[in-house]
Structure formats: C-alpha cells, structure tokens
C-alpha cells in the first residue's frame, strides 16, 4: 500500500465515523454511508478499477472520471442545501412576521 492510499483510507474512515455520529438516529443514512465508505476504500485500493470503468465510458483516466462525478455531486449537494436554506428562510420569515404583527405598537399613544 502506498502512503497516499493510507492517508485517503484514514480520512475516509474518519469521515464515516463522524457521519455516523451526526446521523445517529437515521439507520438509512448510516447504511448508505457505510456503502459509500466501502466503495471508496475499494476504489482507493484498486485504482485500476476506476480506469477500467473510465475507459468503458470513453474517459481517458480514472481520476478524470472521479473528478467529473465529484463536481456533479458537489453541485447537486449545493442545490439541495440551497433549497433547504430557502425553506428555512421562509419559516423564519413567517415567525418574525407573526411576531412583528402581534407586537405592533402605535407610537403616538405613549
């Protein structure tokens, strides 16, 4: 095993443990996370596998294939997060608005 493989596997395992803590109450997330971890570790240990897959899809190198996929995954994650933020913003707005209307004051009357 080369040292980069050791570093990558170490990081992956740490991320998986962290994710497992974060999603403590969600079995489905944990299972998907475990599957991702195993896939990632396999690909790190057998880098030629990604290259073979890349060739099948018409991409020259396995690392390029991974780059393309990770870019798309990253964009997708950002969009999902944006949707969540918009939803949160809407809820906050509703709350703040309700409070503002409830506590309306007529300043001249004081």
């Amino acid at each position, binding site marked *: 095993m080369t040292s980069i493989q050791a570093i990558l596997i170490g990081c992956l395992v740490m991320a998986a443990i962290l994710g497992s803590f974060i999603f403590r109450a969600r079995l489905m997330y944990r299972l998907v996370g475990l599957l991702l971890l195993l896939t990632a570790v396999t690909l790190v240990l057998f880098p030629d596998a990604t290259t073979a897959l890349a060739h099948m899809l018409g991409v020259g190198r396995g690392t390029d294939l991974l780059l393309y996929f990770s870019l798309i995954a990253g964009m997708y994650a950002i969009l999902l997060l944006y949707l969540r933020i918009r939803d949160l913003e809407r809820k906050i*707005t509703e709350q*703040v*608005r309700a*409070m*503002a209307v409830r506590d*309306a004051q007529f*300043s*001249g009357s004081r």
Partner: protein
Amino acid sequence: MEPKVFVVIPAYNEDSILRATVSEILKRGYSIVVVDDGSARPASEVLAGLNVWCLRHNVNLGQGAALQTGQLFALSRNADIIVHFDADGQHPAELIDRVIEPILNRTADVVLGSRFLNPVDARQVPFKKRLVLRAGILVSWMFTGVWLSDTHNGFRALSRAAAGRIVIRENGFAHATEILDLLRRSKLRYCEVPVAVHYSEYSASKGQSVLNSFNILFDLILRRIFH
C-alpha cells in the same frame, strides 16, 4: 365613507431621515405603518411621539419581507388602499394623492410610480443609475412579460383586493420584479403614473449598488427554477 389609505414604509437603519419622511406623510392625514427591518436603533424610538404604527422584525429579512409584513398588517386594519413608500426621502409625499387616484377612480387595481414617464423626472436620475434601471426594465420584461417605463421604483399603490393577491415571497430586492410577475398572473389592472424622485447623497448611499442588480437577476433565475 373615506377610504382608508395606509402608507407602508420599510425601514432599515434610516433614523433621522425616516422621521422626516413620516412627518411629511402625517401632514397629509394618511395612516402610516413603518416596518422596522431589524434596525440597530428601533424605529419606534426614532419615531417616538408620532402617530404611526411601528412593527419590528427582530432580525433583518429584507425590503420585500418588510413590505409584505406591512401589507398584511394594513389589511388587518381594514386598509382600502395600501401605498408602498421608501423611507429614505426620495419620494415626495404630495405625490401620494396622484398615485392613489387611479384606484379611487376604479380605473386600476395597482398603480406603479415611474421616474421615466416625465422627462423632467427622468433627468433627476443619475446617469449610471439610469442605465441599470433600463436594463432592469428589460430583465423584468423577460421574466414577467410586463413592459413598463420603470421598474424597481418603490412608490406603488395597491387596492385592498390587489394587496390580498400580491403576496410578496422574495424577501430581498427581487420583490420589485416579483410584484410584476404576480401582477401579470393575477390579471389585475395596473397603470403607471409619473413620479418625481429626489436623489440626495443620503438616498444614493442607501440605494442598491449596481453590483446588487446582478444579485437580483440571480434571485429571479433561481426563483424560476425552484418555484
């Protein structure tokens, strides 16, 4: 019976200019709702002693959100006409009569103030700002299909029925284009009236920057995708 006119003024850190703006409107006998959008110094302090309604967002949400809050409140106080008015003193209070007139005559449900109908008013607008606003007209038309002589002008009037149907969801500055979008979908009758604007150094410093107009564009694109 006299129609109840409520002037909704969104305010964020406006302080002394807000008091001057509000005093001018009070002289004309309209009801006023100031929506303090989380200012550092509460607007109720700034406006102490004046006969106005003060509502406060305890966090800053944006101008669109503040307008919607004010509109909701005015409707709950049985407003017949709701006027949107900027806090920074750029709109002359004496023009409120002109802006609400088409609603009183029942010739329109929504009235939009325009800086570009009257060449004299248009010349008041700084050149750089004029370019951006012209681009804004084009963008608004592309997104809403409503062609106007001016967009992103904060001076508007809505009938009670219109205000109930124009529910602003864009918290930020994109609300101006959103209103046009809702206007077209709701098939409400609208018209433009010329309004003069007074650009002081103060309002220029508070106004939206040119760069921010790109932000508005992005908001609109995202709105198209996610709604």
